[in-house]
């Protein structure tokens, strides 16, 4: 029993247990709602300008080059895509794992999942050299490419989540019948989707920091962290703004779910780095990432490990901070920051380290062979990446306003 509910009499608790869940649209004054949309819309507009600017001039206006071919937009895009899969986990907990407490949160979970994926895909597509050829990506398939599979996995995810959401919200016979099966399909699909996203890097033999099967489970674990953290922020935001009650019990569940997955990511990272450190061929890249001394090393140790993993764990498990909502929200925000750092280290760090052509020799050329490349994100790249996040938020805000996503109260145990 949580602290909040201890103040209720047994009769009140029983009454609240028996009360039927009532889902309503997000009650917010028009002025506040449109103001909020306007602010978020500004970021989207900035991203649109950034896209047209790069599209018009070419990628020379970005910080990306022929050594670091994927930059800041990819950090944001992959974060959002991976987070999408994790955000849908709350829905799966209710449907697949029969956790009744999570069922009322399923609708918001799925809407957030779809919105995050849309934001991520938008960034990914708008950074293409030829975003205008999107139709080609949809009509020409090389089935040996994990990228091609991912295109299908992402599109399929949106469709499955939409049907899953309908099965949750509609009271019809068919919707009720489909609720469980679609929930299972969604759960398995998510698993494959994140495996596919991790395999984008796992399947790369060329670069020293990739080419490892462990990247797939690492991405799955990371998806739970990113998704749960985003969901926590979203849920608390909506409940705070509509002055609805959010039980301590559900917050605690989410808090420990987040902690568990942060620990799991740390475990996979530990195994990955220890394996690399054991193999002589990977000593170079590990030395660079772990102790190279440039921003990548800082982002790894301070960003990902200290601020993004250990501090959230502390905020969650420190007895003095139990039931402290600010600590809870801080942990979620830090986990998101840590996730962005983690992806920056993997995506950018992995490319900054030179491709090894001659393993037993020191190498040099006029094209960064044998030396660490340089990369710093340009404003258009940052604007595009942040615009993806803004697009996700925009969709979530509108969905919460027009759809009955959230129960009036989540105070019952």
């Amino acid at each position, binding site marked *: 029993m949580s602290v909040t509910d201890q103040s209720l009499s047994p009769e009140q608790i029983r009454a609240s247990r028996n009360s039927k869940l009532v889902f309503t649209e997000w009650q917010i004054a028009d002025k506040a709602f449109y103001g909020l949309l306007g602010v978020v819309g500004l970021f989207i507009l900035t991203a649109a300008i950034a896209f047209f600017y790069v599209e018009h*001039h*070419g*990628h*020379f206006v970005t910080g*990306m*080059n*022929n*050594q*670091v*071919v*994927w930059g800041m937009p990819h950090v944001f895009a992959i974060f959002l895509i991976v987070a999408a899969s994790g955000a849908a986990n709350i829905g799966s907990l209710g449907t697949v794992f029969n956790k009744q407490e999570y069922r009322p949160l399923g609708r918001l979970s799925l809407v957030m999942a779809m919105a995050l994926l849309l934001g991520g895909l938008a960034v990914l597509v708008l950074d*293409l*050299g*030829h975003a205008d*050829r*999107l139709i*080609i*990506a949809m009509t*020409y*398939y*090389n089935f*040996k*490419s*994990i*990228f*091609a599979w991912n*295109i299908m996995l992402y599109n399929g995810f949106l469709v499955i989540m939409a049907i899953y959401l309908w099965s949750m919200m509609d009271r019809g016979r068919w919707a009720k019948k489909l609720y469980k099966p679609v929930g299972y399909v969604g759960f398995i699909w998510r698993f494959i989707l994140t495996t596919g996203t991790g395999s*984008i890097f796992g*399947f*790369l*033999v*060329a*670069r020293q920091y990739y080419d490892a099967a462990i990247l797939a489970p690492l991405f799955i674990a990371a998806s739970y962290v990113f998704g749960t953290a985003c969901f926590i922020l979203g849920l608390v935001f909506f409940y705070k703004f509509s002055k609805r009650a959010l039980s301590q019990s559900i917050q605690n569940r989410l808090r420990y779910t987040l902690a568990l997955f942060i620990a799991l990511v740390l475990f996979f990272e530990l195994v990955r780095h220890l394996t690399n450190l054991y193999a002589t061929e990977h000593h170079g890249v590990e030395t660079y990432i772990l102790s190279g001394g440039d921003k990548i090393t800082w982002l790894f140790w301070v960003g990902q490990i200290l601020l993004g993993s250990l501090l959230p764990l502390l905020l969650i498990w420190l007895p003095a901070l139990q039931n402290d909502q600010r600590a809870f929200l801080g942990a979620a925000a830090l986990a998101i920051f840590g996730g962005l750092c983690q992806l920056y280290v993997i995506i950018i760090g992995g*490319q900054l380290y030179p*491709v*090894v*052509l*001659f393993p*037993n*020799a*020191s*190498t*040099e*050329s*006029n*094209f*960064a*062979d*044998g030396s660490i*490349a*340089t990369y710093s994100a340009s404003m258009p790249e940052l604007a595009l990446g942040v615009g993806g996040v803004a697009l996700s938020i925009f969709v979530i805000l509108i969905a919460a306003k027009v759809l009955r996503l959230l129960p009036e109260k989540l105070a019952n145990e």
Partner: protein
Amino acid sequence: MSNLFDSYRRQFLGGLGMTAAAVTLAPGVILREVQAKPDDEAVTNKVRWGMLIDTNKLTDGGDGMVAACKKEHGWGNDPNASPAQQSQWVRKVTFKDKLTKHETSLPVMCQHCETAPCVDVCPTGASFKRADGIVLVDKHICIGCRYCMMACPYKARSFVHEHLENQQPHSPRGIGTVESCTLCVHRIDMGEQPACIEAAPPKAAVFGDLNDPDSTISKAMKKYGGQQIRADLGLNTGVRYWGI
């Protein structure tokens, strides 16, 4: 023992002489080996085009070959791109062995792998291998995702970062697409050799059909082998080297 050693040495030097003679003759021979393909005839896998570069004879370390490629295809001087954003179809790489301190320079370009990672990862199939082993990019269906650049172990691919004008008619380059060494496919189809081969120092590079046991390149490689960069990856490259 010393006689045995001498005998080995004589065999080795004799073989080297023979090959040197073959390679010296190569330009003339190759003009007959590389037959022009009629335009209406499909490319077949009866041939597999390849290249052998002897780094010991590359007196300039490959500079001449790089310059010839730049001139032939018009890359490397894009007006707005930063040095790291300039295309690099072929580059001169110098490596020094950590133990022996022996230094070698060589040109590194698309190695025209038999099982090319860039072809595997391309989502649309824009990155493809022709039946005769030449790995190319179909610029019409390349969406510019750059996954092939992430996948290439030789860093042989480049992304065009800006609008280009006055391109070489035989080698179109397009903004937002990926490009790399074409093995001068436009020349091969006309029965000529790649530009870099013609520009290489005497006896330093030879081009030909790896499937033809009687071609100069096949004979030379049969006798002395042909090393691959990152042979551990098992890609069976079409570009081979001596002295690496």
